[in-house]
């Protein structure tokens, strides 16, 4: 019998995970500011010696195959691009969450990080291929964080996956999202949103985390971004990059067509790019030193 959890319980879990580092939090704020440029990113990274070292390690890793070593931070950042810098910063300081084995979803070790990385790439590509006005780097960052709530509730879901799948098949549960709510009284977008509040994440990203499965409920001003990540998430799962038993067990909100024009050929191109980029990015992130990335 699973236990129901409430907001207080989730707050307790959140208190047990490390806070976002000051530099990562600042990078997220900078990314969501429409007027920022790369120099703003450089300024933030310079304040953090560990992050600076990581960035230089990544750019000089085998994944990029540079002939001459890059030793200047400015050059490293302009070479890697904003989204990779944000990815390194968040990936490092939230490693405890991203690397958590999602036992409640019967996911393999590292599955959450890999799914988030795929979703990040897919969300960005959706924005690019549909000629949206959304900043592609913002879509990437929001995609990276969208499922963070799974790391918070996974332990409470342990031992339920088999039952959930049966009840989805028999239509007792609508999808995995409603299963989470039915079983433990809290779904992963809501849990992630609590973390977004605790971490004081920018509103746009908090909104994506909260509504990535129910984008129609997002505030109007953020809806296009939320839909982009909603599609990115589904594309990641279709490409075989889910987080475990819940993969492909969510509903697609086909009303995305109201805001995002993604034709079948464009979708195929997105899927192709996700596969290619994922292999490259996974290699470059693994250069940051974590054994399971």
């Amino acid at each position, binding site marked *: 019998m699973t236990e129901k959890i409430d907001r207080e319980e989730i707050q307790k879990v959140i208190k047990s995970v490390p806070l976002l580092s000051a530099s990562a939090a600042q990078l997220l704020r900078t990314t969501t500011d429409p007027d920022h440029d790369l120099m703003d990113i450089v300024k933030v990274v310079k304040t953090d010696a560990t992050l600076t070292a990581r960035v230089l390690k990544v750019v000089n890793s085998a994944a990029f195959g540079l002939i001459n070593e890059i030793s200047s931070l400015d050059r490293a950042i302009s070479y890697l691009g904003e989204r990779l810098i944000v990815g390194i910063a968040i990936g490092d300081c939230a490693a405890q969450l991203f690397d958590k084995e999602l036992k409640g*979803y*019967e*996911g393999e070790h590292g599955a959450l990080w890999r799914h988030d990385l795929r979703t990040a790439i897919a969300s960005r590509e959706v924005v690019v291929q549909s000629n949206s006005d959304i900043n592609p780097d913002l879509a990437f960052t929001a995609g990276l964080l969208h499922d963070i709530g799974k790391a918070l509730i996974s332990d409470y879901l342990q031992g339920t*996956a*088999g039952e*959930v*799948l049966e009840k*989805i098949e028999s239509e007792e549960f609508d*999808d995995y999202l409603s299963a989470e709510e039915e079983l433990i009284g809290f779904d992963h977008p809501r849990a992630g949103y609590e973390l977004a509040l605790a971490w004081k994440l920018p509103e746009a990203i908090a909104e994506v985390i909260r509504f990535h499965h129910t984008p129609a409920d997002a505030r109007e001003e953020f809806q296009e971004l939320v839909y982009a990540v909603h599609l990115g998430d*589904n594309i990641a*799962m*279709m*490409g*075989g*990059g*889910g987080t*475990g*038993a819940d*993969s*492909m*067990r*969510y*509903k*697609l*909100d*086909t009303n995305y*067509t109201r805001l995002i024009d*993604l*034709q*079948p*050929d464009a*979708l*195929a*191109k997105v*899927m*192709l790019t996700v*596969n290619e980029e994922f292999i490259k990015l996974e290699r470059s992130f693994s250069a940051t030193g974590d054994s399971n990335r």
Partner: protein
Amino acid sequence: MSQIILGVGDYGASNRPGEDIKTFALGSCVSVILLDPKNRTVGMVHVALPESSINQAKSLEKPGYFADTGIPALLKEMARFGCNPKGKGMEVKLCGGANVMDTNDTFQIGKRNGLSVKKILWKYGMGAVAEDLGGNFSRTVTVSVDTGEIILSSPARPNWKL
């Protein structure tokens, strides 16, 4: 026991006793498995998309990505093992091709992959003797060279055979 692991868009064949060919987490991708009992050879391609027309350059570099270039590439590979280059005498089995829930036509890539694979096979006069396509779940597939037996797995489900 040795194992050949195929990534997205990879294809491979083997006649080595004791060997398996395996591909992980098919999602909307389709795995086409060719079994040649006469030559005791099995082959597999992990197809991600129905048509190569969206990116010709990619189809030259990695033909296995697409149904229309992946199947001919697999047949060519199997011909190296002495199999008939047109697939004569081979058995075909298909798995994968899942879709997300409440999907629309655009997002039914799993379904389109399945249809496209069948269309190409049809051109060779081949049809699947068994298939495990569709649904809303991701499949991992292993085929044994010795027995031709196909084992499917998916998180939180008991393994099953095809």
